């Protein structure tokens, strides 16, 4: 009996010891090993680099979707996808659904995340463990990218206002909506503020902007990209400001007229400011890079042309002109579009033209290129009333990029005719690139001229504001 109770006592002791050991010695505060903490005060150079690369990744996220969606809205092409009828039923016929990022509710969430990622960096860069010049470099770069993100929102939302003062903590009240006009001014000011920082940024950045910015990865060369974007924004402002009142119903008023904006375009593109150069490659510029490396994103727009569902609109072929030296069509057309055998048709839309524009998964998408700058120069000259100069550069693009003949006596034509020619050259030069067609036709009030294939189709002038933004403010 005594042996028994001894055994019982030992058992009980062991049990208690076990419980105590279990309860006491275990650390329950387990960190999440899968994610790094956000950039904070006193950041190291490596963290700054990581956050800046993160900013470019955030910017990149929405670009393929925007290129594809805007090309459909602007009638550059279609996506005839049997697995998802919304590319036709929503984007071509409507209504645009503001609840889905992939469709009508897009070009909002990802862009604001980019802007806020930028503020995450800007808010703490002051205490980072890098030199003051390097801090200025970060500021200039980040602000330029933020301006670009704001512009992407504006390019899709022309009839609504957007919030701009968004550098707030999550518990503060939401940034108020401002008019479209104010938002364009804000973007322009941001680019100028970035310029001030870039001029004080010394000779090199502390971070590596990656393969998309080859040739533009020092503060001095990146400033040229900044000025290029400024030229684009000023051209948009000028053309919107020149629209007759009531062209688009905008609850926040019309755009203020700005004829001097054309002058700003010329200033921004001048030698020593930006990289516009008729002797340099037309493709020179800043790009969004894609990759097939680990955790990198391939270009979702790359496709096998023979089985493709992202197709070009038939009017792109019908309106292409023949080259001067041969019977072939416009060089730009041949480089970006190819025949698809057999044609594909869905819900009343047919095409036998596949996009060739982004042939591989690592094909980059341009942010802004020399070719666009030359066309902006021509547009600004036209805006200033200098038809001869405008015609000279339009013809240059025709010859250098399209392999076409010059239009004789273009400079002597009425401004409207020159504008027609300019918009046509912009179509082919900037085909399937960043929604330029939709944006251009819209800012010149010509959406009615876009081809409509069947009576059920409609051309939209703007996407709606993301429904979650609207709901959060009620």
């Amino acid at each position, binding site marked *: 009996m005594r042996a028994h109770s001894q055994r019982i006592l030992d058992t009980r002791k062991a049990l208690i010891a076990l419980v105590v050991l279990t309860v006491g010695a*275990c650390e*329950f505060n387990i960190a999440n090993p899968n994610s790094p903490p956000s950039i904070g005060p006193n950041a190291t150079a490596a963290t700054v680099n990581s956050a800046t690369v993160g900013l470019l990744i955030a910017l990149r996220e929405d670009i393929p979707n925007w290129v594809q969606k805007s090309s459909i809205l602007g009638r550059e092409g279609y996506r005839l996808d049997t697995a998802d009828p919304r590319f036709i039923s929503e984007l071509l016929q409507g209504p645009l659904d503001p609840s889905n990022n992939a469709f009508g509710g897009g070009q909002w969430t990802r862009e604001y995340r980019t802007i806020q990622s930028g503020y995450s960096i800007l808010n703490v860069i002051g205490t980072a463990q890098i030199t003051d010049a390097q801090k200025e470099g970060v500021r200039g770069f980040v602000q330029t990218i933020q301006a670009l993100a704001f512009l992407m929102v504006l390019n899709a939302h022309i009839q609504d206002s957007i919030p701009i003062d968004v550098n707030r903590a999550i518990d503060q009240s939401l940034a108020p909506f401002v008019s479209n006009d104010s938002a364009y001014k804000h973007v322009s000011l941001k680019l100028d503020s970035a310029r001030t920082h870039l001029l004080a940024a010394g000779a090199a950045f502390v971070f590596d902007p990656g393969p998309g910015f080859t040739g533009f990865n020092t503060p001095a060369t990146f400033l040229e990209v900044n000025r290029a974007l400024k030229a684009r924004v000023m051209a948009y402002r000028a053309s919107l400001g020149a629209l007759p009142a009531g062209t688009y119903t905008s609850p926040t008023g019309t755009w203020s007229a700005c004829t001097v904006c054309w002058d700003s375009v010329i200033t921004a593109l001048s030698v020593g400011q930006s990289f516009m150069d008729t002797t340099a490659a037309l493709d020179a510029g800043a790009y969004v890079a894609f990759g097939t490396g680990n955790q990198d994103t391939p270009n979702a727009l790359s496709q096998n042309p023979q089985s493709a569902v992202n197709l070009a609109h038939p009017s792109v072929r019908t309106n292409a002109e023949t080259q001067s030296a041969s019977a072939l069509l416009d060089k730009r057309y041949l480089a970006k579009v190819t025949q698809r055998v057999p044609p594909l048709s869905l819900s009343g839309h047919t095409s036998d033209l596949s996009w060739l524009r982004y042939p591989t998964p690592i094909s980059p998408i341009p942010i802004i290129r020399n070719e666009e700058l030359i066309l902006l120069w021509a547009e600004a000259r036209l805006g200033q009333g200098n038809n001869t100069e405008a015609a000279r550069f339009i013809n240059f693009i025709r010859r250098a990029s399209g392999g076409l003949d010059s239009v004789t006596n273009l400079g002597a034509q009425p401004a409207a005719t020159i504008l027609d020619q300019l918009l046509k050259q912009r179509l082919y030069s900037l085909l399937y690139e960043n929604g330029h067609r939709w944006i251009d036709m819209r800012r010149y009030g010509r959406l009615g001229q876009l081809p409509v294939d069947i009576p059920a189709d409609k051309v939209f002038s703007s996407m709606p504001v993301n429904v979650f933004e609207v709901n959060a403010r009620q």
Partner: protein
Amino acid sequence: MAQRIWLVSLALSIGVAVGAAAQQRPISGKVVSATTATPIAGAGVSVVGTSIGAVTNDRGEFTLSAPQGAVTLLVRGVGYRSRQVPVAADASSVNVNLDQDVFNLEAVVVTGQATGVEQRNLANAVTTVPSEQLNRAPVQTIEGALQGKIPGALIQMNSGAPGGGGQINLRGVTTINGGVDPLIVVDGLVIANDAIQSNMDAITAAAAGGNPNPQDNAVNRIADLNPNDIQSVEVLKGASAASIYGAQAANGVIIINTRRGQPGKPRFSVTQRFGTSSAANTLGSRAFRDSADAVTVFKGDSALVGQLCRGGCPTFDNAGVLFGEHSLSVETDASVTGGNEQTTYFISGLVKKDGGIAPNTGYQKQSIRANLDQLLGSRFKVSVNLNALHSLAQRGISNNDNTGTSPFLVFPSTPSFVDLRAVNGVYPANPFSTSNPLQTFAELTNNEDVWRIIGTSTARVDAVTTSTQQLRFTLTGGVDYFSQRNDILSPADLQYEPQDGQPGTVVLGKASDLRLNLAGSAIHTYTPASGSFQATTSAGFQYQNKDFNRTNVVGRTIALGLRNVSQAASITSQQSLQPEKNLGLYGQEEVLTANQRLLLTAGVRADRGSVNGDPDKYYFYPKAAISYRLLQPLGGLDELKLRAAWGQTGNPPLFGARFILDSTAALGGQVGQLRPFRFGDTSIKPERNTEIEAGFDATFGQSATLGVTVYQKTITDLLLEQNLAPSTGYVSRIFNGGKLRNRGIEAALQYSPVRAADVSWILRSTFFLTRSKVQELPVPAYLTGGFALSLGSYFIQQGHSATQIVGSEGVVGDANPDFQMSFSSDLNYKRFSLGFLWDWKHGGDVINLTTLLYDAAANSEDWNTEGKTRWNTFLSGKTQPYVEDGGYLKLRELTLAYDLPPETASHFGVRTARLSLSGRNLLRFTSYKSLDPEVSNFGNQAIIRNIDVAPFPPSRSFFFSIDLGF
């Protein structure tokens, strides 16, 4: 008669007679069944008031040494009602007749970590499914074996793909964003039930187009278990029953007890099955008369159409050919059990290979188990359960995609006049779409290979055993380790492969999960000499350590014939680590009094976990319950038990919810970090589920029982995501809030019209309905799940059902069934037995996007009659045509068996032999237009179930089995 095994043992232990100082006298006897006079082996005979006991042998005989004087023997046999038999001082032998316990009223049901009460006293609605009902017809995974057997449970498979993947939902919606699976406990060990995605998404790109939820048709790991090893399943449906499992038990607890050894000579049994399966439903497409008719739909390909439809359009049933295999399924199942009073063992093995209904699909499972119970001395008992499992599931490709690879996303745009079959072993390219599904299934490999080891060991010490008191300690340690390997190979010559510019794709996924459990209890039972009450006090702890590591590597651009990821030109990889710890402490008091008629229970559990915002804080989950048995209250009514119970359980936050960290990605060879879309909550805590239930159980003699329960559960501190204005840079933030209520009624009826020596017949029926309501929602109503409002989406809105479906025009349906019923019958006549089970779900809407895709392509089979109307109604802005009633009546199980007469059996050298024919899911009656109303594109989900996008078709299976006993 089927032998059943003891569950958790009660206060009275069965031990070997301990040598006592006082004089002993031998008592021997025989225990037989009252109805059939067959001896009962393994019955426990104990002397009341002592710890002296014995177990009957194969012939029902027992011998024990009792103290001098008159004694009372308590005789208990599993499956029989216990009886107290007085033995006079001078009697030395006694014969005992035991009545069958047809409705398991005396079966012991678990009420705590290590305590149990008899079913007839139980204060909660706990459903016990014994192994005869579980294994009425062969089944691949245990979810299928439980369908239709548990009132209050909606068990639906997510698709027809082989190898599992189903959801067990107890008592309706319990959460919106939290975990949805019930806790699974096997022999005291909480086992892993994760569903790990295979990353078929690398081929289908399903998670890209507007809905980021994974749609890889994953299998949750309860599928690994061998249903033949299971002795019984107890389902704790409500919080009052499950609160003893605390913070993880909000969705209920399923307690699985595996078969234990039977004392006696070794008994060996073998089951050999042969069978096959076939598709229960596929979809056809529109038949075209001639090329003029076809060109109206396939406008762009008029030349090709003209060529294929020369002289009229032929029709080919490509879907029927793809899912038209009838491969052989074979299963071999063997077990041996035996032992003596001190040692009992149960060893089993399973080898199963099921063919699938499509090429390169199927399911294989192998299992080996050894359960050992060993008594050391009279006070110490050790049980060890070891189980090694291996399964290989080949599930093909199905569900949503954005690349035109999933068959029922390709068939809608492929006309019926195209023949996709191979010619001379070469599959034609599909000229109308991006892939040829027949080629895809012939060449695509999608293997999920799982190795799993589950081992538990329980030590039980009876420290004190007197006539009034007992003190027992138990300690259970367990290990559950599984390693899941997913191999997907999509060779470069598949039609769709070059689409992304990187022909050839190979995916290697490896996930490993190690769970360690340690649980200990102290149980004290006090029965005063007067016997007026019995009080059981228990307390203990439960510690769980989880280590989960998942990696997935996708290789693209890999040459034909190669399958190693290092041979791919570009590699992307991802890894997820989830370490987790949980600790629970509990205390419970159970008092059984008033002549075993009144049971009062109260208890509390305290839990802390590393996933909570404050990992050191304990959350308390109390419970209380009462039951009272009225004996003979009315004529015909033998017993009426009234019961009421209340309790709380929790649902833990998902891993990572308490952190606010960046996400990472790469660009140009550099890794960058950027803010995520979801803002975490550093003070996140578990959801709290408070439930009150009440009911009664009525017994009508030996012929019928009826149990009815009504319940209401209220869930507060829901894990919610508040949609933020995207201009903040975040899409949502996680927080606790809101209130969800769910109430329902369950009923279970068992009726035995005939029970004689020759014939026995038991009918069972269950009924269940539940309704949910979002009572408080501190955020604006929001869309959750689905693809877009116009395509049908779920909408969480205050004052409405949590599972309401909305479309462009408003509310269009609700995924919650109106009610569910099941009917089963088990009839034994002489040597024949016939059993079947019908499962009826009435109502419960499904978002049918598969039919929408057929209609969008003007290619649905009924286009000219109803399809056109549906589509035009949809185009006019209505979602209703594609939100259909998903009700069904299915014949889940049907078995016809014949037991060979003993003489014939011994002629073949066996003790018993049984031949049977069985089938599963043989018949279905439904008005649903797509493949099957039991479907979930997004797998196991709290709210967004019942979305149908190109699932794997359902199948039915038939088996012929031979069971031999040696």
